[in-house]
């Protein structure tokens, strides 16, 4: 039985291991133990704090195996990206170059350094132990954050975003970095990733292009990967899509990976949420898999459980699930179908 919960200082050893193992690096989890400890402490404070609007809070979650107590994953939410420093992304603008005399018109894309995402809540620091089989754990780890956001709206902005890994080749070389970042930094992508610690450091203003970068003037290889997730991020991409995230006109300044954004109101965690009353049962119900979350007295928990599609039947949960969620008969839990119904209203229409 896997469940997601806020991290605590006792998790430090496991977190340190994950931080060192994760590839590519997790900027939200420093390798240095003391810095990591500070992050975990900040997270604990953040979960405890009374918050009226998003600020410097940082929420760190872990995926725990209830049977062994082992931690198998982590993910986080930054309440306001670039809280104290601007958060940088490239905005991909379309410029129309048209001439009436020549009867020509073309859309020319240009990448402009933008601070537009600064202050928005950001999903970050996703990591899953590679030993876990199947996609369910990844879905749970990733989307539990949205379940938390749905239950704690004041703590986050109405729009949240997530930066996915851009394309790199087998040698870890990013074609976009080679064409753009390298010219400004004069260094390898991997070195800068480790040194820089994120996308909200002031050195970016010093080093990255202050003028827009015309896309058609870049080498083909760089143009091709613009806004494309790396193979390693395809699962994450699918998970975000399932939640209702969409690609926007932003891409990462280093590897041109896509920035995905979602309006919380329209995301699955809110739009498809059903509050259900817990019923005790010996066995799990028959039905589709749901994300089930409880947030009793700030003790957030999230699991995957099969529930009947009949909302009125409530959340029939066996003991192991109730225990992982910390709920009893009669408590209310948030339930969101893990997947969109396969038969949506468009699927039957002729193409």
């Amino acid at each position: 039985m896997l469940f997601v919960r806020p991290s605590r200082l006792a998790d430090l050893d496991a977190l340190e291991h994950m931080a060192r193992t994760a590839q590519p690096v997790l900027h939200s989890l420093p390798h240095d133990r003391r810095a990591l400890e500070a992050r975990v402490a900040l997270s604990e404070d953040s979960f405890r704090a009374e918050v009226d609007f998003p600020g410097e809070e940082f929420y760190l979650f872990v995926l725990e195996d209830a049977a062994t107590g082992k931690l198998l994953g982590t993910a986080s939410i930054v309440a306001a990206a670039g809280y104290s420093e601007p958060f940088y992304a490239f905005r991909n603008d379309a410029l129309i170059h048209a001439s009436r005399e020549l009867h020509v018109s073309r859309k020319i894309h240009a990448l402009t350094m933008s601070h537009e995402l600064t202050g928005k809540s950001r999903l970050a620091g996703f990591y899953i132990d590679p030993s876990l089989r199947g996609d369910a754990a990844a879905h749970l780890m990733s989307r539990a954050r949205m379940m938390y956001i749905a239950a704690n709206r004041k703590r986050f902005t109405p729009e949240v975003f997530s930066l996915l890994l851009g394309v790199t080749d087998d040698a870890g070389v990013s074609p976009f970095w080679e064409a753009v970042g390298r010219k400004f930094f004069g260094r390898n992508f991997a070195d800068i990733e480790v040194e820089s610690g994120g996308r909200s450091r002031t050195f970016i203003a010093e080093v990255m292009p202050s003028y827009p970068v015309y896309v058609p003037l870049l080498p083909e290889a760089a143009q091709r990967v613009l806004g494309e997730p790396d193979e390693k991020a395809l699962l994450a991409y699918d998970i975000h899509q399932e939640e209702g995230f969409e690609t926007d006109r932003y891409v990462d300044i280093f590897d041109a990976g896509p920035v995905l954004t979602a309006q919380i109101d329209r995301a699955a965690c809110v739009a498809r949420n059903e509050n259900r009353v817990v019923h005790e049962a010996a066995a799990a119900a028959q039905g589709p898999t749901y994300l089930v979350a409880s947030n009793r007295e700030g003790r957030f928990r999230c699991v995957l459980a099969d529930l009947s599609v009949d909302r009125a039947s409530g959340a029939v949960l066996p003991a192991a699930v109730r225990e992982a969620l910390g709920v009893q008969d009669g408590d209310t839990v948030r339930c969101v179908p893990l997947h969109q119904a396969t038969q949506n209203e468009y699927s039957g229409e002729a193409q």
Partner: protein
Amino acid sequence: MIVVRVVQTGDVDALVALAHETGPGLTTFKPDRDALAARVERARRTMEGNAAPHEAGYFFVMEDTATGDVAGVCGIEAAVGLEQPFYNYRVSTVVHASQDLGIWTKMRALNISHDLTGYAEVCSLFLSPRYRTSGVGGLLSRSRFMFIAQFPERFPQRICAELRGHFDANGSSPFWRAVGSHFYQIDFNAADYLSSHGRKAFLAELMPRYPVYVDLLPEEAQACVGLTHSDTIPARRMLEAEGLRYENHVDIFDAGPVLECHIADLRTVRESVVVPVEIGAPRVHHDGQRALVSNTSLTDFRVGVAPGAPEEGVFRLSADDAAALDVRAGDTVRVLPLKSKQG
């Protein structure tokens, strides 16, 4: 004697014939009778002081006085960009540095500029292949500086010359392929034709509005910035010997260099002298010395290369050369002694 002189209305037929020798590439000198007649007329109005500042332009022809053959042309625009904008890229330097990361990088960026607005421009030089022998091209090019030296009040403070950029073995511009083709959406020759015929509206509509980072372009395109077409290298050397320099302005289509300088710094302006003429055979001890010699008339300005050097404040011309330059004993001439090998 081969002389360069101010164009006359009667030269139009000869100009049309000469323009047939140009072939593709030189967009400002085509066998178009109306256009050439208009150009001659514009030069005439300029001479008479009846041309508005934006249209003032001088036009010269090279003539073999022995045969009357017109074998070359060249021009000076008095002030560019006063009606249609005069566009160039200014090649600027951008440094990115971070002390924290120990990073310091320098790159070039191309900025659309009108910096050269109001400059005079030497332009439209064409010499018939039949006359491409030693010294003739130099005479044709430098004749304009003799004119400017003689009539400085007719020109602004600065002057420029646009040189053709680098084209690859297939006759295509790598810079155009990497930059211009994406923005202008027509082929190079069409863009060049429109631009050189005063139809520049499309430039403003289509050109890059933001600076272009040179270092982000393909390497072959980077190499083009400020690089002269191989055929134009002799012209560049000539202009550089005259004192013009590449000052980080390049053409917006092929990234060929623009050379520029203050008119007061032109070698011809600084070193030429005005002296009276005497008629006679060249002095023996001037053997091998030659000079650019012009008369001082505006409407019948003529310049040619003659043997000799000024001596004791006088320049001695043969009777034939004096006739070719339309000067008589006692008239003054402007003389620029040529260094050996030059001419």
